[in-house]
């Protein structure tokens, strides 16, 4: 049953996967097992996206399905859900920029690849990045931006982290819209990633998992 379940979610069969979720809950199955299967299903979605079979519509819709599954399962859970993560990444769209489509894809892909992601959202002031780096003790920071003002905002964010003495043990990647390697040099970041798969590859490399 759990193999079917994973496939139904990965193939985005909304009615079927929700019906099976209810059926499994009615049969008093361990809700943690259902969540584990849905995590596996999302992993398949992630690898299909990385492989060019799935695109944004599939990612968005799979997220929509997962949300519904979680809502069904939640009342049956006892205690908190903890999952083993392979590393931490803090991400956010820099100050003055409110775009988040790319940011959320990076969040999704890092998450299904086992990272604990702290997503600070959009228009993130420098101080908030600094606080999050301190609080999470992350070694990886992802700066997202879409428009040209992000060039300077990224540069200023990196400089501020340097000033705080946080830069040394931190790898910084940038991406989004008009970002490229020229901007990476300008902002003094460590890497530019052209898509969410690059963010995963860089993060894995930096934690020594790739």
């Amino acid at each position, binding site marked *: 049953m759990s193999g079917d379940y994973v496939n139904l979610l990965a193939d*985005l069969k*909304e009615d079927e996967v929700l019906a099976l979720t209810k059926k499994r809950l009615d049969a008093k199955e361990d809700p943690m097992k259902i969540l584990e299967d849905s995590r596996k299903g999302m992993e398949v979605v992630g690898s299909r996206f990385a492989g060019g*079979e*799935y*695109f*944004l*519509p599939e990612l*968005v*819709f799979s997220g*929509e399905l997962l949300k519904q599954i979680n809502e069904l399962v939640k009342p049956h859970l006892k205690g908190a859900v903890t999952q083993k993560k392979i590393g931490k990444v803090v991400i956010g769209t820099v100050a*003055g*920029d*409110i*775009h988040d*489509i790319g940011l959320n894809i990076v969040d999704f892909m890092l998450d299904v690849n086992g990272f604990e992601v702290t997503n600070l959202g959009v*228009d993130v002031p420098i101080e908030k990045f600094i606080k999050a780096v301190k609080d999470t003790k992350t070694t990886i920071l992802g700066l997202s931006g879409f*428009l*040209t*003002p992000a*060039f*300077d905002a990224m540069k200023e964010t990196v400089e501020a982290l340097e000033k705080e003495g946080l830069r040394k043990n931190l790898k910084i990647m940038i991406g989004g819209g*008009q*970002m*490229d390697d*020229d*901007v990476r*040099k*300008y902002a003094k970041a460590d890497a530019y990633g052209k*898509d969410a798969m690059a963010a995963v590859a860089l993060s894995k490399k930096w934690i020594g998992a790739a």
Partner: protein
Amino acid sequence: MFKRTDNWSELTWQQKRDLRFNKWISGEGIKFVDKEAEKNYQARATRLAQAAKMEIPDRVPCAVPTGWFPAMNAGITLKEAMYNPEKMKWAWLKFVDEYDSDTFDGTILFQAPVSDIMIDKTMKWPGHGLPDNSHSAYQYIEGEYMKADEYDIFMKDPFDFQLRYLLPRTTGIFEPFKDIPSFSSYQGLPQRLMAMSLDPKFQKFLKAIQDAGKQIPALRKADSETTQAAAAKGFPMFRGGLAIAPFDVFADNLRGTQGIFTDMFRQPDKIHEAMEFVLPKLLSGAISMADATDCPVVMMPLHKGDDAFMSDKQFETFYWPTFKRLLLEMIEEGLVPFPVAEGAYNRRLEYISDMPKSGVIWMFDQTDMANAKKTVGRVSCIAGNVPVSLAYTGSVEEMEAYCKKLIETCAPGGGYILSGGTTFDMAKPENLRIMMESAKKYGYYK
């Protein structure tokens, strides 16, 4: 205002386009500052029109995409440019005097004082959600401004949908309209309006509309005086109208990314039906704008159909069919669609090559230009690709090398305009200048 000839319906699309282009090139009605300016205007417009038609002009035209750069150049904040029309006009004309280009990129399209009064909830701009000294002009807040189950309401009565569903969500002063019955009846309107005029909620609305309306003349005056003055100095505006792809009407504006991508699985037929519904409206809008401005070029910023957003199959199913028909129908009217493919269109090149030769100009952002030249470049004029990152962070030498390579790759045989991949809201002044100089240095056809 463009007037059709008596035999308009018997003309080929190329003849219609030439009539429109000729009117634009003539500069009829422009009060040129001198003979030289008139000559320059016509030479620039001719160069652009020839490139668009895939003929060989004297040299590669260069359209420096200046966006909000004139504000930066004049040392005023974007907020000042938005709220002070006279200052905007001064800054934009200062730019025209200081920089060479084959085009004038136009003034700002955003009316901040109006948006303030109307309580625009779909935008952030300096002083309104963004800091006063922000380097970013205005940014769109995506949302599901039309709900998943409202496609039919939208198609049944777009006026009612706009008034009672869309505007109360997007524009604060319209909020009271969400609670009232429809106006779409054949009688009773005067009574309804009189009753509303006594209701404090609607009195507030009417006052706001009036206050916003009072802002318009000064904004419009500065805008048209700037465009006219740029033309009078010899710089044509290469944009007579704006349109968008039918899919983006929903993906950008009404349903948002999240909404439309969910609809693609749950109710694909509704998307198709709704795209069919908006297609003729987009067409007639484009025609009337081009008629009014006397310029046949219709700029079309494209968003949700790029390589990263959807698969080939999804592009072929959802994005391309109605967009293609819109392009063809625009061409048939003698218009020149000018799609701006933001992001990358590397996997779309084959689809978009299926167009009548010289009917469309394609502006590319991060698309591989050598491939573009080999594919869509055989049937359409191509433009763009100079990165804004280079314009802002690169050296003059790097900028020149990039432009030179682009010209060598794309110019042979005609059908190429040197331009940016996106607007250069921020750039080094010397990098804008070297762009134009590169067109002159490397772009002459022998």
